[in-house]
């Protein structure tokens, strides 16, 4: 049984076909990176997995149960899947600790003390000791993104979706966030990662999928996909990345 099983996923924005019969299986503790140019459907695919955007056709199963099945508790979906966005999307009017403990308190009915203790533990694990009473705007981009990761982790999910989490960061700050993600991998977190950092994808992924025009054109372990891509479109994409010096 797969942790995430995406079958025949099809999605239109208006008349625009953004996901064209996508099939993707992610095993427990596996890290899968989605690469591809802008508009290839990577982020949409990610958002379909935790039902943030509705899809037109296909099915998404978690541990073998469809997320639209009546057996499936919707609350459970958000508990089991954490997502982190490119623009962090922290709540600007709340302190770091309030951002982190909001969902545990209000959605999962944990006590304030319990969720704050867990939140602070995560913060120190992510190198953010002493920031719990700060407001997001007082932090650097890299710190904000790590807070967003902690917030996603505070629900104790077993799947993390990362949507270009380093795209809005200064090059200097990217390292901090990526090393945190590598730590999560070591702890066995199942992750589906949309990224433009090819070096990072090569380091962290068990499998890399290249998306183009809403389809997964190629799917292989990183060493194979980056060194001997089979699909001409993949080769072209990687060639451009190499030319721009990003691999």
């Amino acid at each position: 049984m797969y942790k995430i099983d995406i079958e025949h996923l099809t999605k239109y924005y208006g008349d625009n076909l953004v996901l064209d019969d996508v099939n993707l299986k992610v095993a427990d503790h596996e890290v899968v990176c989605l690469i591809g140019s802008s508009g290839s459907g990577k982020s949409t695919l990610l958002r379909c997995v935790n039902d943030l955007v509705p899809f037109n056709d296909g099915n998404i199963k978690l541990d073998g149960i469809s997320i639209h099945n009546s057996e499936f508790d919707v609350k459970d979906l958000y508990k089991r899947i954490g997502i982190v966005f490119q623009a962090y999307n922290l709540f600007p009017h709340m302190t770091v600790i309030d951002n982190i403990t909001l969902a545990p308190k209000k959605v999962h009915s944990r006590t304030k003390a319990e969720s704050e203790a867990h939140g602070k533990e995560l913060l120190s694990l992510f190198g953010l000791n002493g920031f719990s009473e700060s407001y997001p705007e007082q932090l650097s981009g890299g710190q904000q993104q790590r807070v967003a990761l902690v917030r996603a982790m505070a629900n104790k999910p077993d799947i993390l979706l990362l949507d270009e989490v380093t795209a809005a960061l200064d090059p200097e700050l990217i390292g901090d966030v990526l090393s945190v993600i590598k730590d999560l991998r070591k702890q066995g977190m199942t992750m589906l990662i949309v990224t433009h950092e090819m070096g990072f994808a090569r380091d962290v992924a068990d499998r890399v999928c290249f998306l183009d025009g809403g389809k997964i054109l190629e799917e292989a372990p990183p060493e194979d996909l980056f060194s001997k891509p089979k699909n001409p479109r993949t080769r072209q994409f990687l060639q451009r990345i190499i030319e721009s010096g990003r691999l």
Partner: protein
Amino acid sequence: MILKRPALPRRAGRTLSARDKYGPAVISVSTVLIVVFVIRSVIVSSSQWPRIKNQFFNLDVIIEVFPKVLHGFGINMAVWGVALVVIAIWALILAVFRSLTGPWFAPLKVFSIVYIDLLRGLPSLLLVLLFGFGMPALQIPGLPKSSLFWGSLAMISSYSAYAAEVYRSGIESVHTGQHLAAKALGLSQFQTLFYCILPQAIRNVFPSLLNLAVALQKDVALLSVLGVRDAVREAQIYTARTFNYSPLIAAAALFLVATIPLARLTDYITKKDRERRLQGAP
């Protein structure tokens, strides 16, 4: 060689002379004073001035009616204060109704749209007359008969429609990423609104809401048409008897004393709000 940090911050160019420092202030103050003086002397020297002064600025009359006008003004301010609280809450409820999505909430949404369209489209004066004279005339048992009550309700209904639209613009100004983040954390539609969206929305539109409060502060005088003995009514009663308009000037002065500080406060808060947003911008 170790460069020593200068003790004083470096000034660009030469130091400012006293003339540079105080010149602009002296010039603005003196020109304003001169203009005021000229206008005043033109007015005072005109042949009509004594009559105007007697009709509008008669100190004896003002002193005579002031206690009554002040008492009336107390009613204005009391209505204003109560109305502010009720409007702040009722308009927020309307705005929340209007922003709800999902088929089950359709009736609430439609109610809110119809309410806002109707009450924003009608003149406040018409509503005050309709409620203030119409409702007590029905003599429905159990309902209050006071025109003060119904008139206030008319003002509240009307201003709530405006305030609801201000709230709504605030709700819509919150970035969609915030909705996404809240949904992804598992928060329900109402939890998202109350914990994530509304606090940001209210903060964004607070200056606009204060502006409405200033407008309402003067508009409560509309209740005088119902015979409510507010500041305007008290002044009018005296004026109708003596054909001297000084009491209205006294009432006007009271309104200005109340509205100008509030308007300044609004300016100040708007300025702070703009600074906060510029600071928050990446």
